[in-house]
């Protein structure tokens, strides 16, 4: 950047802050955008699960005896005894009982019999993409957490480079061109900052906790990582080797129902089942709090041993216990989820428009970069397209697990390469939008065809309707524009001939 002796300190600060903003945007904007899109979808991961596997039994609640019966049946069916046995209880947005071990998961019927295996490959693919970018767990969490830190950096540098933040507080010009795009980017960034700064911070907290724990343990606890978080989440009791009959599962659940009727259990965790050292945690929801729940501890015989303190312990425990729910928006029912999904879409728009502004400014200076600009458009619209293609093939039963992962990343890379070859950002945008809409339509029709004889829940129907609506919004406006492009020489919005 050249020094200009006539530049005021304020404009110098703005220019340098914008430079910092740009460095991060250019190097990491694509990955942050993928996180924003997948995060938005993840808000409704439970509804998508129900859509993906509509045949699973659903119930408002399950009795302690029935839950215990189902859990024992699954545990006893395992060839190698599991080190953990979980019961996931019905929730308002996921009214299903799931019994999970180290290696498998089954739905339970309300009478305690075991139903089908849990199978929602696309939802799992989506969550793994958002949590880990499909990298090995600790590395992926750290990378994703780092991207959260960079999103905070974008907010800081964005505010620093926005000297007219108050004067322009409600300015929103309409039309095509640079100024309306700048207004869109700046106004949305400022007014939705409570959401995206909080989400970036909580996401960074969750992602970077492991690597931070390693460092703290190394300096403070002689490398013992368990000691870093045990004051928050409770200490593990000492391991006792030896076999024992499986613990009393129904007893703790009956205790919770009688002593804490206002706190419905969300998880039952049996550690080291059928061993002498087995012990029980029941995680119960506090619906009037932001915390994810409280741990209620029980012995193997079902004797209550106290709670950990997430709900009523130290400020630090309560704060850390709230991070997960604040990030994922599952603390306030459907309305809060809808708000989070809208904010997530707006964050995606902010990121997409930010780099578009960069390219428009470049073009205004004669520094055309059609390949790079096309590459950015291919990330913006290639991400939803490739997510839809993975959904389509998962619904069709063609791909799951690693297949979906490879399809997404190879597909996105191929989309970017193809866009660079085309070197026409407007055409790339229009074609990818149209393909996304078509793919969504085919997916919904295929899902409907495969589930003709099933009775999907209202949530599952809602997902289909929303997917159809998104298909329409994304693709229909492109059809007349593509017709114009088909007859004219490709002329983009700045009047360049391509």
């Amino acid at each position, binding site marked *: 950047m050249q020094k200009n002796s006539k530049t005021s300190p304020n404009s110098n600060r703005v220019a340098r802050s914008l430079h910092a903003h740009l460095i991060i945007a250019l190097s990491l904007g694509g990955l942050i955008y993928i996180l924003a899109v997948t995060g938005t979808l993840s808000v409704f991961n439970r509804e998508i699960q129900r859509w993906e596997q509509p045949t699973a039994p659903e119930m408002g609640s399950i009795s302690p005896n029935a839950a215990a019966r189902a859990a024992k049946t699954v545990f006893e069916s395992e060839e190698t005894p599991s080190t953990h046995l979980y019961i996931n209880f019905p929730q308002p947005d996921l009214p299903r009982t799931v019994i999970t071990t180290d290696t498998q998961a089954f739905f339970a019927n309300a009478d305690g019999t075991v139903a089908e295996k849990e199978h929602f490959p696309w939802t799992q693919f989506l969550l793994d993409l958002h949590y880990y970018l499909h990298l090995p767990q600790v590395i992926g969490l750290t990378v994703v957490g*780092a991207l959260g830190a960079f999103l905070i950096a974008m907010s800081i540098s964005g505010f620093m480079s926005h000297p007219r933040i108050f004067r322009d507080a409600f300015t929103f010009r309409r039309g095509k061109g640079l100024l309306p795009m700048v207004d869109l980017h700046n106004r949305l960034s400022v007014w939705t900052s409570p959401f995206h700064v909080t989400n970036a911070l909580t996401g960074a907290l969750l992602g970077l906790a492991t690597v931070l724990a390693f460092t703290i343990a190394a300096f403070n606890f002689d490398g013992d990582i368990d000691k870093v978080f045990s004051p928050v989440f409770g200490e593990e009791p000492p391991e006792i080797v030896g076999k024992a009959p499986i613990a009393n599962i129904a007893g703790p659940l009956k205790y919770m129902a009688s002593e804490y009727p206002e706190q419905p259990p969300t998880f039952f965790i049996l550690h080291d089942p059928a061993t002498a050292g087995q012990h029980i945690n029941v995680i119960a929801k506090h619906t009037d709090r932001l915390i994810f729940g409280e741990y209620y501890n029980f012995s193997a015989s079902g004797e209550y041993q106290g709670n950990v303190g997430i709900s009523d312990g130290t400020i630090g425990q309560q704060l850390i216990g709230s991070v997960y729910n604040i990030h994922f928006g599952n603390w306030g029912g459907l309305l809060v989820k809808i708000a989070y999904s809208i904010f997530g879409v707006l964050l995606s728009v902010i990121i997409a428009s930010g780099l578009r502004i960069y390219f428009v400014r470049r073009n205004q200076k004669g520094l055309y970069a059609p390949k790079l600009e096309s590459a950015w458009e291919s990330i913006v619209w290639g991400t939803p397209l490739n997510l839809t293609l993975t959904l389509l093939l998962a619904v069709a039963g063609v791909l799951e697990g690693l297949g979906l992962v490879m399809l997404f990343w190879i597909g996105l890379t191929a989309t970017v390469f193809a866009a660079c070859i085309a070197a026409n950002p407007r055409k790339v945008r229009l074609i990818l939008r149209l393909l996304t809409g078509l793919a969504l339509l085919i997916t919904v029709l295929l899902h409907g065809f495969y589930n003709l004889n099933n009775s999907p829940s209202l949530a599952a129907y809602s997902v289909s309707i929303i997917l159809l609506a998104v298909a329409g919004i994304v693709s229909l406006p492109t059809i007349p524009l593509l017709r114009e492009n088909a007859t004219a020489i490709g002329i983009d919005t700045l*009047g360049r001939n391509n």
Partner: protein
Amino acid sequence: MPVTVQSTAIYLLAILAAVCGTWVLQAAWRFPARQWHLVLLGWILVFTSLYVWTLTTTTDKGIALGIAAWVMIAVLFLLRSAMKSPVRAQRKQRKIKAKSKEGVAISMPKSQIAVNALTVLTIGPLAGLAAMLMSTLLLCLMQLVQLEYTATIALTMIIFPVFWAGLAVMLGYQQRLSTRLVTVAVIGLGSSLCLWLVS
């Protein structure tokens, strides 16, 4: 809060306060000269809304609900502003001559690519490492003055990404690669030295 006439009235009051507060802020913005009394009134109403939300549930959840509701209301106000503003006719675009003969961006020299890569490395992993050491140092110092442990670990978990973000902005703000490298080295090594002395 169970749905009753009283609870519905409280919800409506909270929403109304947020809407009025945002409306007053927008009214203040319309004046050519800053109207501090209107700005103050607007923010008082917004914070009143947050307080009223806490009456519907516990403090933490109430504030969160209030912020979520207020951001939605602000976005709706923006949408209203956008719908009311006239659509500007796009100026006839003049053809801008490309800076290179081929009409595409001049390719970057290899030295600049190397500088850019090192810049990303500095702002990324190196700044992250320095931030992690700073955060751990902060935790050790808080433990030295015997602050309650869970509070210190919570604060450290929050401070780490904020330090990293702040460092990234500071390094991006600087103009020379050498300055960036020296800055991150001083912060990282300084924190390591202090950690070694303290722990």
